[in-house]
């Protein structure tokens, strides 16, 4: 094989790869950004920075939620560092307050007041108390979670952290980063942790 044919074959491979990965009509990342910044406008608390992706959102979008393992682990480690555990080391709050937070789906939209108390939207995606039949199925059922996992320090730390930043445990999870995004307060996450783990909570009855 001459040098020229080698170059030609590499050229052909590159063209084939480009053709399989990108359809010609597909917008480039830059074009997509132009469309987003031109066609969306800030409204209420939903400012334009929300259309810009952070590394987690970008990697998950580009890989259709299946990032390469190395990158996934590295970004999960970064996300783990964002989690702020309560200074008083008390991770379980009041499950009764937690139940109300789990049921409320308000917060963070352009209609919601920025200083209003947000909900956790938990029931939108998870089954929790067996007494609440209106639950979503995008996330796994958490009914009996505390009964299965116990409510010791490890379980508490895991549940609190998972609610605070779900992406630290499963990078492309569909679950919002409730603490990291500023949706829920420390006390609210404590109350939700109790709702999931407390033996007295209806979730564990």
């Amino acid at each position, binding site marked *: 094989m001459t040098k020229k044919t080698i170059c030609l074959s590499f050229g052909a491979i590159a063209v084939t790869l480009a053709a399989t990965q990108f359809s010609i009509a597909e917008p480039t990342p830059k074009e997509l950004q132009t469309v987003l910044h031109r*066609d969306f406008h800030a*409204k209420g608390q939903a400012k334009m920075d929300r259309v810009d992706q952070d590394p987690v959102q970008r990697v998950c979008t580009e890989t259709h939620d299946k990032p390469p393992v190395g990158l996934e682990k590295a970004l999960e480690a970064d996300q783990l560092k964002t989690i702020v555990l309560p200074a008083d080391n008390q991770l379980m709050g009041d499950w009764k307050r937690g139940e109300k937070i789990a049921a409320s789906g308000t917060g963070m939209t352009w*209609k919601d007041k920025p200083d209003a108390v947000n909900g956790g939207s938990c029931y939108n995606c998870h089954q929790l108390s067996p007494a609440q039949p209106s639950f979503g199925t995008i996330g796994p059922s958490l009914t009996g979670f505390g009964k299965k996992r116990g409510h010791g320090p490890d379980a508490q730390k895991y549940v609190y952290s998972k609610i605070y930043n779900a992406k630290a445990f499963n990078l492309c999870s569909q679950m919002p980063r409730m603490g990291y995004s500023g949706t829920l307060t420390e006390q609210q996450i404590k109350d939700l942790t109790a709702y999931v783990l407390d033996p007295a909570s209806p979730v564990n009855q």
Partner: protein
Amino acid sequence: MRALRGSVLLVAGALATAATLVRADDTTRQEIQKYQRMTSESSPVELWELQGADLWKAKRGPKNASLERCDLGMGPGVVKGAYAHLPRYFKDTGRVQDLESRLVTCMTTLQGFTEAEATKRVFGNADNPSDMEYLAAYVAGQSRGTKMQVSTKLPQEKETYELGKKLFFYRAGSWDFSCASCHGTEGKRIRMQELPVLSEPAGARGTYTTWPGYRVSVSQLKTMQWRINDCFRQQRFPEPAYGSEATVALTMFMAVNANGATYNGPGTKR
């Protein structure tokens, strides 16, 4: 028309009450489906279509003209079957347009409204629906029974479809959601609401062919532009502009995915 509006409210009220009762007592999937059958059998959608037909023919705007010469893609004045072929590329505007953005074009060119006037109040409420909602119901209803045939033959149409697909899977916002977060996996629900997978023909066909839709819970007819707008609100995004390239592209993506299905709207929603 007042009598007509009164009966709409009565029917809507009865349905809303039925909705509450059904929700309170029965929560199983079967009961939801039963309720959906019940509501689709006695939907007030036709009253919206009638009002829309009147508006279509009414002489309005600075030019005191009707919309009867509006070209929805099948020639001036052809309404029958037009919705099943939208969105599509329009030479006169040089844009791919959905029904609603095209109606805005006709209101400006034929009737002489400014674009700001034509889009001032596009989303109405139960007491006072918008002109756009009436018009969308009328035009869409004229495609009932027509097979969805949205073209991606022209480069502009293909590009719009691809842009829609990109936007559909674009994760961002406070909660990291894309459209696919809710509409990307088979058999999922938010609370009791089943979620169609709109990136696949099976899900897109059943859903796209029943929008615009009369929402029993709010006694209002809602358009596709509204549907997309409210999805982005729930995604915690900023607001997309009405009839923008982004929202038309998403409509295009879903419409093409629904190709081959028979248009059966405006439908009835929860």
